[in-house]
């Protein structure tokens, strides 16, 4: 059957179970293999899983409700954690028989039933055969319960109150017999020590005073072994050395107690101090370690001095006071050193930053200049091409120039026209006019200059 069916079945069974079979007093020894691993009792209504592990039905159902993860249809076996889905209620008859065979005491032992029966019979014994089970009182007017044993013998109600004529006390009917024969305080009994006959009611008072009763010496708590008759004890106490020393012992005891208390107090305080000391020590050791580490690289002498307390602190933690003083003396020194160290570190960081910035600046400058150079080369190329064009344009003019100078006078008129137009734009009309003759020559000059570029 699957989990849901099993849980439902267990729930219905739990309701009609009358006797707790696990609470029984087991008399006979039983094999540990007959024991449910969950409740450690012989199996009750055993079931088994696919992995062949056997449990009590009710134990398994509570294990399922505890271990199953949110309504999944399997759960881990409580013994081997193999996932199990199916639960089988058919276990070998042999196993059930062996469990039912185990001898137990009747659960009504408290009522007086001394019987020892096989566990399998307990249910029927308690329900039908046990003489100590409680049944309703045969008297209809009485609503109390009584033992089934008593019902058979007497048919009257055992709960009625009966009056004992001797001791003038009221006793319930069912206890009357016992009262009459044993318990009534008027009955005469003899003292076990002095054989005097007294009534039961006075027996306790008699024993307190009976001269034959052996009582221990009052120093028995200080190990006096004497235990003699009451009249003789007084004499013994006078000579007993332990009695004489009693007050002294008492005083010593009180002193010991107070000392112990004080010691406990001191121990607690000591523990607190030790803890505190350990804390301080560990922080100190850590700080010295940091210091010595930072000094290791540069000054070997300093690190040597620092490491000395460190190694010592590790090897002998008990030697705390000595260590603490040595550490304290070096603390100021090491503090200054660490301050120095941190400052040095800052300086180093700053210089690093500066070199970094420097490198970056030179990089940008180089980049910029490269671009400018490129631009310049471009402009140069453009200029060159312009110059070539100009030269090419000028060439025909240069060739014409010799002839031009011959005809200069003829062209004078037109040139003056040109010059006048130029003079309106330029500031020096005269120079332009005087240059007018040299123009072809100059243009060739500029052309030569261009080639130089």
């Amino acid at each position, binding site marked *: 059957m699957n989990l849901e069916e099993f849980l439902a079945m267990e729930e219905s069974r739990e309701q009609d179970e009358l006797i707790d079979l*696990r*609470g029984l007093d087991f008399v006979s020894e039983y094999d540990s293999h007959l024991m449910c*691993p*969950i*409740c*450690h*009792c012989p199996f009750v209504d055993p079931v088994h899983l696919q992995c062949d592990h056997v449990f009590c039905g009710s*134990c398994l159902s*509570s*294990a399922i409700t*505890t*271990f199953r993860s949110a309504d999944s249809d399997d759960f881990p076996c*409580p*013994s081997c*954690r193999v996932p199990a889905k199916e639960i089988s209620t058919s276990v070998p008859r042999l196993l059930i028989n062996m469990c039912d065979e185990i001898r137990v005491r009747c659960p009504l032992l408290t009522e007086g039933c001394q019987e020892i029966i096989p566990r399998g019979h307990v249910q029927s014994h308690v329900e039908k055969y046990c003489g100590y089970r409680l049944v309703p009182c045969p008297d209809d007017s009485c609503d109390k319960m009584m033992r089934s044993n008593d019902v058979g013998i007497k048919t009257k109600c055992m709960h009625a109150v009966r009056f004992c004529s001797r001791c003038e006390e009221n006793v319930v009917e069912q206890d009357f017999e016992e009262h009459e024969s044993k318990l009534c305080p008027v009955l005469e009994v003899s003292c076990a020590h002095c054989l005097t006959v007294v009534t039961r009611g006075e027996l306790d008072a008699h024993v307190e005073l009976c001269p034959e009763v052996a009582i221990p010496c009052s120093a028995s708590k200080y190990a006096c072994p004497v235990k003699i008759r009451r009249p003789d004890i007084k004499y013994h106490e006078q000579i007993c050395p332990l009695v004489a020393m009693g007050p002294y012992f008492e005083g010593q005891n009180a002193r010991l107690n107070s000392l112990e208390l004080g010691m406990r107090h001191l121990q607690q305080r000591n523990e607190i101090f030790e803890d505190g000391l350990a804390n301080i020590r560990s922080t100190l050791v850590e700080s010295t370690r940091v210091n010595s580490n930072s000094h290791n690289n540069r000054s070997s002498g300093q690190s040597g001095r620092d490491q000395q307390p460190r190694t010592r602190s*590790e090897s002998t*933690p*008990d030697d705390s006071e000595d260590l603490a003083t040595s550490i304290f003396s070096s603390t100021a020194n090491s503090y200054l050193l660490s301050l120095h160290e941190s400052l040095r570190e800052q300086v180093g960081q700053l210089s690093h930053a500066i070199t970094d910035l420097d490198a970056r600046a030179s990089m940008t400058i180089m980049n910029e200049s490269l671009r400018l150079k490129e631009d310049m080369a471009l402009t140069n190329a453009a200029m060159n091409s312009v110059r070539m064009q100009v030269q090419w344009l000028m060439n025909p003019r240069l060739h014409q120039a010799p002839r031009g100078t011959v005809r200069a006078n003829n062209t004078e008129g037109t040139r003056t026209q040109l010059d006048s137009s130029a003079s309106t734009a330029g500031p020096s009309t005269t120079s332009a006019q005087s240059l007018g003759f040299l123009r072809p020559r100059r243009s060739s000059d500029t052309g030569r200059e261009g080639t130089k570029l």
Partner: protein
Amino acid sequence: MGSVKRITKELAELTQSPPEGITVELAEEGDVYNWKIHMEGPEGSPYHKGNFLVKLSLPTEYPFKPPTVSFVTKIYHPNVTNDDKGSMCLGMLRADEWKPSSKIAAVLQFARQLLSEPMPDDAVEGRIAEQYKNDRPRYEEVAREWTRKHA
């Protein structure tokens, strides 16, 4: 209450035939859920000759929930926390590792086993575990020292 029945049974077994070096009693009469255990340090370990007081508390859902073990006596051990709780980290006591069929006797024996063979990989005190792995003589010295002082 199924748990009380089983716990009293286990307690009776442990008091009748206690495992080596372990004595068990209830911390308080009438409360079966809290146990007081005296554990002797196993021979050959730095805890030898120490007598450790261990507290074991059982949940009401026992045996479906695992018990918890803590050292009342201070102990220098990688698997025991070095605070006022002294809780012990046992693999089998983790909620997902626990099996209802495990017995308290097994738990206690395992705990004592852990004293002679710490498990630095499951440590709760990383510093001690480190020392156990790298500087065994030093660890043993401190553990012996603590045992002498506290146990």
